């Protein structure tokens, strides 16, 4: 089975908990605190190269799994680009211009997510680690 078809046989319901766990760890590590504007909002994230779709929402200031189909915002990018975005190493508009990041659904929510990620100061160890990934 190729990697890209992996997501076709694994239901999103099984994939969302690990993504939420990563974001929850980041939240507990105090470098990705969700802002009040994200409370009650839902996002679906597609990792295009892996063919995986995750749904998550923000409730009571925490990240939780959420259905993919009824998410208000849909973001799609490769795993490498998502990691670069989470690490603050790449500009979301640059990825969008180059068609490496796709957005559908509630654009204003997309802007809130983007500006929230941009405003977070990452720990120095993460910046050093991320600098070793493909820079762009």
């Amino acid at each position: 089975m190729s990697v890209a078809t992996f997501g076709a046989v694994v239901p999103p319901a099984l994939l969302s908990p690990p993504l939420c766990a990563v974001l929850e760890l980041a939240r507990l590590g105090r470098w990705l605190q969700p802002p009040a504007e994200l409370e009650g909002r839902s996002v679906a994230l597609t990792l295009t190269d892996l063919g995986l779709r995750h749904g998550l929402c923000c409730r009571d200031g925490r990240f939780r799994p959420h259905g993919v189909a009824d998410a208000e915002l849909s973001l799609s990018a490769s795993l490498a680009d998502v990691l670069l975005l989470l690490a603050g190493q790449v500009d979301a508009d640059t990825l969008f211009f180059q068609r490496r990041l796709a957005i559908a659904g509630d654009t204003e929510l997309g802007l809130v997510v983007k500006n929230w990620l941009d405003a977070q100061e990452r720990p120095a160890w993460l910046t050093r680690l991320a600098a070793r990934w493909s820079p762009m």
Partner: protein
Amino acid sequence: MELIAPAGNLAALKAAVLAGADAVYLGLKNATNARNFAGLNFTEADIAQGVAFARQHGRQVLFAINTFAQPGRAQEWRAAVDAACRLGADALILADPGVLAYARQRYPQQRLHLSVQGSATHADAIELMREQFGIQRVVLPRVLTVTDIARLIEKTTVEVEVFGFGSLCVMAEGRCLLSSFATGDSPNNRGVCSPAHAVRWQPRDGQMEARLNGLLIDRYAPDEPAGYPTLCKGRFMVEGRRDHALEEPTSLNALSLLPRLAAIGVRAIKIEGRQRSPAYVAQVVATLRAALDAAQAAPARYQPQPDWQHTLARHAEGSQTTQGAFDRPWK
């Protein structure tokens, strides 16, 4: 020449300072600045930290309060001026004459810059703003050639700042109402030309459609570079042909002109992009810093390095970068 960098948040301000900007410009979280986007811009607590950080590094913080006060709501713009002065602004970047008058009367010692949105393109207009409001600097609209700018500098004592890099628009600077035809919002009345609530990107038949308040403004093939979703950059059917009716998405890149701009007396180079991330700010500022240092050290031998051009091209909106109006062959 000074290097003036954009900051949409505290992380971008710090990135700009650490990458070598001489000054950073920012806006409050409201319609008093021309990048009034959801989740962007500074709370007063962020600004206090940002100003302290910049001061520690010997850099300046400029406040963009550069939209036009709306009828009956001038108090919001005056309050923004009050906040900027209270928070320690090194200069205010203003466009509206009423706001300029308020700032000059209330804060006689405050340094004032005339924003690009103020649309002053010749020495008479700039001198009038100096006489009336005591502006110390003008940010020139992106419609003048280097020759125009050189002539203008000879006729005014006001410092001149020009854009060196960033996304371009149709440059009806300060008075663009185009998007308001589709959305009711424009840079002048809301500080935003394509408000996010009105923008939708939808996949259809293998292409991506960009819609503004339901109006189809562009359609992109899978690997075609995309631009910001503004009416001016959309592609429309005109006389049977689908093309950019007004302007192709394009970025300004004045890297090769830096020694000329310095020689004619330009005092500062500005980078566009308060809506961009700290990663953009860090890389573009570092590139312009290296170029400005090289241009200052040996102007006659100055050549833009390929890796500088590569870095800037990577961040450019649209498929090309140009020298904009600086070098119009047809003028």
